[in-house]
């Protein structure tokens, strides 16, 4: 697409010099006018907050009326460095983000490959794969709480029926099992979107590539490795990086499931910063945490995306 527009752009640029710059400016007038209604709210509630949010990390801003805010440089970051609770939370956030993204990808790839085959019940799987995507995160959390609840949930009863144990598990309530459980639920939520995207990518692979490989004697596995995977790479790169960002920023699901507990074992950085900002009113400190989170996401993206996109050719 960008190639097309680039070509169009260069053609237009070539014919550009015939017009005087003044006329070009006037021609752009109505277009800028069309942009205005979108630009005002965006500047006010997105661009400005973004910049101010980054800046707040360098101040001692606090909630409340008539509180003077002063610039404190890197003080907040210095404090963060010695805040072991924050780094614990950061570690939990990384475990959560990487596990969910990776598990999500493999689960979704498996399902997408199955859906790409001519199997019965495919329609059912497709339909089911849509529902978690459309559900509000809060509802997903409530649903899983009902499922895993020690008394009304089905989990313990199933364990009892299958004679696998006494059935007194409280997965979300125990510090050891809460994080893995939350990760599993995160996979459930995000898998559908990844599946549908990968499936669309699979269906875009030209059939004759597979046929040619089959004629050359390539088996199922080698066709997957040498035809499917390279063709799918751009889609994989796009969806895994989006998943990574979305998972890192996710809030509602874990907030309702465990609220960060028990004992802080599922306290994602988002939740930590939320409590810092709106529980204790330490806006500056919370913004500094957010700054650190931004830097991390950017670093991961910078390390990951270029290599993926290069392997495309």
């Amino acid at each position, binding site marked *: 697409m960008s190639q097309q527009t680039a070509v169009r752009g260069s053609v237009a640029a070539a014919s550009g010099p015939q017009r005087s710059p003044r006329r070009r400016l006037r021609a752009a007038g109505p277009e800028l006018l069309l942009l205005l209604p979108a630009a005002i709210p965006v500047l006010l509630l997105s661009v400005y907050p973004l910049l101010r949010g980054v800046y707040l990390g360098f101040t001692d801003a606090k909630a409340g009326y008539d509180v003077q805010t002063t610039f404190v440089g890197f003080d907040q970051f210095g404090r963060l460095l010695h805040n072991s609770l924050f780094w614990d939370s950061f570690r939990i956030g990384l475990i959560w983000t990487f596990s969910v993204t990776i598990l999500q990808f493999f689960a979704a790839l498996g399902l997408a490959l199955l859906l790409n085959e001519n199997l019965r019940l495919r329609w059912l799987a497709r339909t089911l794969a849509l529902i978690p995507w459309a559900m509000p995160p809060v509802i997903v959390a409530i649903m899983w709480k009902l499922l895993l609840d020690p008394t009304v949930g089905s989990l313990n009863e199933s364990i009892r029926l299958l004679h696998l144990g006494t059935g007194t598990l409280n997965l979300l309530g125990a510090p050891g099992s809460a994080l893995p459980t939350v990760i599993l639920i995160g996979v459930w939520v995000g898998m559908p979107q990844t599946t549908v995207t990968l499936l669309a990518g699979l269906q875009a692979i030209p059939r004759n590539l597979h046929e040619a490989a089959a004629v050359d004697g390539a088996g199922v596995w080698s066709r997957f490795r040498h035809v499917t995977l390279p063709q799918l790479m751009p889609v994989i790169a796009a969806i895994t990086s989006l998943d990574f960002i979305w998972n890192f920023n996710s809030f509602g699901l874990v907030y309702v499931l465990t609220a960060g507990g028990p004992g802080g074992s599922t306290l994602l950085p988002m939740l930590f910063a*939320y409590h810092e900002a709106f529980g204790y009113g330490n806006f500056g400190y919370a913004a500094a945490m957010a700054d650190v989170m931004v830097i991390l996401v950017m670093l991961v993206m910078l390390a990951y995306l270029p290599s993926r996109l290069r392997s495309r050719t």
Partner: protein
Amino acid sequence: MRRRAGRAGKYLGLCCYLVFLGFPLLWLVSVSLKGERELASIHPRLIPRHFVWDNYRVALVDQGLARSALNSLQTALGATIIVVLIAVPAAYALTRLRSAVRTGTTVWILLSQVFPTILIIIPVFLILKDLHLLNSLGGLTLVYVVWTLPFALWMVMGYLRNLPRELEEAAAVDGAGRLRIIVSVVLPLLAPGVVAAAMFTFISAWNEFFFALVLIQDSDKRTISLTLANYVGAEGLIRLGPLAAGAVLATIPSLVFFAFLQRRLTSGLLAGAVKG
């Protein structure tokens, strides 16, 4: 022989996926149809012994759910209308402009997807406080507009780029003015893209939780996600039947829209991801 084993394996895999994806949903519906007596039993069953519809009535009448559903509807619809009204002209202008504005917009669209909402929410909270829009559905609507705009804009721009420019040029040759071209040539062709962007905005706003949690305080202004989350307090789950019924009901609007939207959403995502 091996082929058949492979096929059986595939079906087995598919069944595992079906159970994993579907069972939690079945359980939610099952709980919503159980009476209080049955919910207290220590041996819960998937298929209720007696189907009880009363939970749905209670959810709608007693728990203020109807009120919050109206609040959610108001903010989601409001955001959708505003987004369509501002995204379509902006997308048109952006695809016709070749300048720093377009590069700037693309950078902003990408950045707004990457930055954690926690970074934006503190300044937004302060700004809305200054504008006296804190704890108001109007303020929340505005935030949803800005929050869903990048993706909606991206979608509409994708559709616009695929419209052959020759059509517009042909209309211009026939003597149609700029406005006439937009109204009678561009807009009708763009309709599917606008519908898709509108549905996306509605679902996002309806499902959203974090902004509402921070920006809304009064219980009569709560959105549906806030109200339901409030019933899952620290003291554990209470009134399970109506809670489950409310959860089922709250899912329906986005589900209905989503059924229409899904195909377009993926193709839009792919168009941006692969060819972009």
